[in-house]
């Protein structure tokens, strides 16, 4: 008899439980090609759970020139997010990549809200971001607090110029002010862009939260990770996965919760969303002429010199280095040079690093690059050099003379700012004392910014390296 009554109460209890479904994605990085599969998934889920909430944990933009380099940076991804039916997003560090005015445009274009508790703006910027939002679904109150990562410089990992006028506080100190949200919500979620390791740290000090939907570290959290009773999730990046969180709520309390990591790539693509993606790709961005090449460029080295000049200009460095393997065209004809041509010339998306090197470290670095990049002596800007390359492949190249652009010898003891790509920084055996810092542009972006300011370029015959092959 006792058992029968217990079962009856159990069944009644289950009947009164409300189910809340939340879908989380993060770090989409402008992967518009993944949106049709996400749209299919969300449509299917909404048939089963009409009240579900779809959330993005930041860095929705940055990573695709169709999205980032048009007249309105980031807007194409927001348009697609509107179409798919996002309910909420927080900021990632890359939401700040185009400055405050572009951020305002981005927020205003969204048909969903942004939440972020640790950003502070001025009235004149017109950026109005709430720290949290409370949704109500079938009588259940779901509170979502937003937090973005802040680096050692006091801003998110974006170019300081783009964060001008914006102020940020520590996400951890900020979270402590919002513990009271627990009393206003049946389900409390923190939508973060801190990275998984910092989400674990946040969970240790914020057990009031039921779940953290995280981003930033591109971590594939399979099934959720529980720390201090808080369910932490993250769905890697670029719409490879979506996390489905489900909460059972009884009498204003979460009685059970779970997270499932679900792959998107094998789902059928939603036709209406494909059309919108194709429309985005038909924007004239890639066809834009940046400059005119006066005389056809007939060598990889001359193209490399142009790339090095572009990197030096963007990084504001004394010297720039480009490994020849990073120059993906052998020649370029006279005539128009478009954005598409830039991406053929430098398709890698490698970050550009600026470091301060002694003259000796600079020469060591140049000598060591061909050991990892087998295309020969690297191309340079701001200097010229002579080198000897033994014909035996394994013997290293030696620099025998190195001059600055004005003809002054490079002083082994003097210090120079030097820019080069992240591939060189990672694979060249030489290790300068200053490991350097990534600037906010990759090689292609440096070229676009450099070339679009010039009506004409003439690099044919430009050579800054004199190589002697030694028997």
């Amino acid at each position, binding site marked *: 008899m006792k058992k029968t009554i217990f079962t009856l109460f159990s069944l009644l209890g289950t009947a009164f439980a409300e189910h809340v479904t939340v879908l989380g994605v993060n770090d989409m990085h402008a992967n518009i090609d993944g949106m049709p599969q996400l749209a299919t998934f969300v449509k299917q889920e909404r048939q089963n759970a009409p009240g579900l909430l779809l959330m993005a944990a930041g860095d929705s933009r940055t990573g695709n020139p169709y999205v980032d380099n048009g007249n309105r940076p980031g807007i194409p991804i927001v348009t697609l997010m509107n179409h798919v039916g996002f309910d909420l997003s927080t900021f990632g560090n890359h939401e700040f990549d185009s400055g405050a005015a572009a951020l305002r445009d981005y927020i205003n274009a969204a048909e969903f809200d942004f939440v972020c508790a640790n950003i502070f703006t001025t009235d004149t910027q017109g950026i109005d971001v709430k720290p949290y939002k409370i949704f109500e679904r079938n009588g259940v109150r779901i509170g979502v607090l937003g937090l973005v990562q802040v680096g*050692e410089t006091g801003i998110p990992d974006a170019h300081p110029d783009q964060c001008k006028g914006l102020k940020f506080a520590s996400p951890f100190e900020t979270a402590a002010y919002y513990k009271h949200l627990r009393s206003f919500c049946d389900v409390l979620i923190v939508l973060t862009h801190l*990275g998984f390791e910092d989400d*674990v740290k946040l969970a240790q000090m914020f057990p009031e939260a039921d779940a953290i939907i995280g981003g930033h570290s591109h971590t*594939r959290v399979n099934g959720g*990770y529980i720390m201090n009773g808080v369910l932490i999730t993250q769905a890697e990046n670029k719409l490879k996965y979506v996390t489905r969180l489900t909460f059972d709520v009884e009498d204003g309390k979460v009685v059970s919760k779970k997270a499932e990591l679900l792959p998107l790539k094998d789902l059928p693509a939603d036709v209406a969303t494909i059309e919108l993606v194709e429309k985005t790709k038909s924007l004239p961005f890639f066809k834009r002429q940046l400059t005119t090449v006066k005389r056809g460029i007939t060598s990889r080295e001359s193209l490399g010199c142009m790339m090095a000049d572009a990197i030096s200009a963007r990084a504001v460095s004394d010297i720039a280095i480009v490994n020849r393997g990073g120059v993906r065209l052998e020649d370029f004809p006279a005539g128009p040079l478009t954005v598409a041509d830039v991406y053929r010339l430098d398709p890698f998306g490698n970050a550009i690093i600026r470091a301060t090197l002694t003259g000796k470290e600079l020469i060591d670095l140049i000598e060591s690059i061909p050991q990892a990049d087998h295309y020969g002596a690297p191309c340079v800007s701001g200097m010229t050099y002579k080198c000897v390359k033994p014909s035996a492949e394994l013997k290293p190249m030696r620099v025998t003379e190195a001059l600055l652009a004005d003809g002054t010898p490079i002083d082994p003891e003097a210090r120079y700012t030097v820019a080069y790509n992240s591939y060189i*920084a990672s694979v060249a055996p030489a290790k300068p004392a200053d490991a350097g810092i990534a600037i906010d542009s990759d090689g292609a972006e440096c070229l676009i910014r450099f070339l679009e300011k010039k009506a004409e370029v003439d690099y044919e015959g430009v050579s800054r390296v004199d190589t002697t092959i030694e028997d």
Partner: protein
Amino acid sequence: MLVYVNNAEVSIFTGATALDAVRRYCTDAGIALPEGELYDMYGNVLATDSPMTEERCIFTYYPF
């Protein structure tokens, strides 16, 4: 900045990705870039473009 790959200290530029750190680790160790996935200290798989932060620990094999 200093990060850790397979518990070895690696000096890498600020703004590096997990793949940058692993490449630097392999260059320093004189070994080939390993195949397979990368992991954080909790055993989660990482995307190769996962941003590195000071003192972050990653692994080229499942360490647990």
